[in-house]
């Protein structure tokens, strides 16, 4: 298993490299200059700036320079937030994004699995129906509609939670974490329900039941273990969903995380910033996929590492 993990990590290197290469070259050919100013720049100033940022060098040299910078965790200067480097922004924003993302994932997994199991055990019952509705809403109603609605409800009408903002208090974190978790709650509950139903039908569970092992124990020990595998396999994609969702959530709730920098960077053509966030988020998703693969092996002995 250890060698498998190592192999997966080594296998991820070309992916990361491809991501860096693609984003670097897309950003270089995308429209818009790297120097956004509020005044027209004279030729002399422009030449100076180009030189200062090494833009007068051939493209491959610039790429090499960028890679060398990355190796030292230097993502270059931000063009939109002119008082900061991209690295400074990431250092400031990443912990915030990770915090929201982590809690949203945890919440989604717990609620999703609980709803899924409840639904599977009482098929077509009230719980199952409710879980189904929640899942449908989570999938079909965009978070950018749910967010403002909750802001109005909890922030204004009821006054229980702050409308927006990020001040370190847990009250301010409730809404964004909940909204971010919603789509994953939907997917995970459906997934759990489906695999649980299948798992209850499998021979070993039937056998266990036939042998007279208590229904409770069968459910918890055998059926659940079988049902968990697809859920664990889903954690990789779930990370991707959470990462994407965080871009929207940070926008709605004004959270100073890196998802927000991505959007601001993209719409203001701050290419170093966009690249930095893309590479970082890409790295997180790739890592999550590796962890998922390894985890599947730990839980399910049938998964071969070959």
């Amino acid at each position, binding site marked *: 298993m250890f060698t498998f993990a190592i192999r997966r990590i080594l296998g991820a290197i070309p992916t*990361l490299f491809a991501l860096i290469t693609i984003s670097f070259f897309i950003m270089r050919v995308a429209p818009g200059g790297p120097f956004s100013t509020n005044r027209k720049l004279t030729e002399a100033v422009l030449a100076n700036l180009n030189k200062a940022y090494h833009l007068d060098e051939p493209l491959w040299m610039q790429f090499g320079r960028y890679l060398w910078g990355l190796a030292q965790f230097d993502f270059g200067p931000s063009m939109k937030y002119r008082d900061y480097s991209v690295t400074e922004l990431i250092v400031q924003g990443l912990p915030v994004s990770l915090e929201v993302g982590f809690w949203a994932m945890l919440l989604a997994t717990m609620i999703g699995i609980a709803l899924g199991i409840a639904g599977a055990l009482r098929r077509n019952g009230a719980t199952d129906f409710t879980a189904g509705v929640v899942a449908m809403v989570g999938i079909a109603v965009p978070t950018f509609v749910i967010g403002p609605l909750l802001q109005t409800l909890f922030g204004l009408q009821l006054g229980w939670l702050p409308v927006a903002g990020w001040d370190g208090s847990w009250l301010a974190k409730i809404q964004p974490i909940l909204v971010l978790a919603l789509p994953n709650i939907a997917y995970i509950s459906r997934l759990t329900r489906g695999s649980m139903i299948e798992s209850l039908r499998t021979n070993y569970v039937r056998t266990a039941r036939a042998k007279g092992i208590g229904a409770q124990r069968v459910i918890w020990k055998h059926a659940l273990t079988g049902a968990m595998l*697809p859920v664990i396999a889903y954690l990789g994609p779930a990370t*991707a969903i959470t990462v994407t969702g965080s871009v929207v959530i940070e926008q709605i709730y004004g959270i100073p995380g890196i998802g927000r920098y*991505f*959007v601001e960077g993209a*719409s203001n053509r701050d290419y170093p910033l966009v690249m930095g966030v893309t590479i970082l988020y890409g790295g997180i*998703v790739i890592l999550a996929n590796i962890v998922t693969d390894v985890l599947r092996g730990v839980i399910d002995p049938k998964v071969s590492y070959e």
Partner: protein
Amino acid sequence: MSDVPAGTIEATLERAEQPGLSPIRASWRRFCRNRLALGSLVILGLIALLCFAGPLFFPYGVEDADFENISAPVNLFSAHPFGTDDFGRDLLLRVLDGGRVSLAVGFVGALAAVFIGVIYGATSGYVGGLLDNVLMRTVDVLYGIPYFFLVVLINLLVGRTTAGLFVSIVVVLWLTPAVIARGQAVSLRHREFVDAARAGGMTEWQIILQHIVPNSLNVVIVYSSLLVLEVIITESFLSFLGLGVQAPASSWGSLIDAGARSIETDLRLLLLPGGFLVATLFCLNFVADGLRDAFDPNER
């Protein structure tokens, strides 16, 4: 949100291992027995008909603003049954027109992605060997890249037109159909009818196009219904982030975005496009479920 649950795809993949012997017609019959799925398909068809044919019956175009009737309320018996927006444009017409863009991007986008993916995957799986290795390594690498970010990057590159939106979505979404089709192709490669075709003098390309691709389709159809859903949602996200279609063109995503701004003043602006979008997504979801059941005889 965006990504399709991996479990669904994998389940589909596993079931696909049985060769495509069950004819599509049998599956269709099974599908028709599923009332919810069939009903959803009918509603979906009606929505599409409404969006594409409906605007033809209006006496004015979508860009004809009636400056005398700005923000007119709902009045079913007036010239503007669902009222007008804050420029005096007919709201219903706007939503139908936006639906054209959303549905077109969704269906055509999914179709194009499936087309590219199936050809790529079938070739890779059928030919095998080094080519298979290279092609599939490429897919693996691209798979690792978070899809949404790639869409935004490409969107920046090709610009903010409807076509650009379409391209950026397709470029990213062909990967899964490719993997599915490859799996099918590998299992079909050494079957008798393929051998027979080869002996009969068909070229490799003819075999891929006439035998491998059609036999992968049943699996791919299930997946594409989910893909349409994904594309429509992605489009609405891009619109929310300000990277979608440009005014005065609209899509459901951009209309909902505008509507979400006026939650407190004019709820119609959110509810009408939102209703259409949610109804479409619900239907697509049920249709996808129905298709999966129909193509998987073991389920019932």
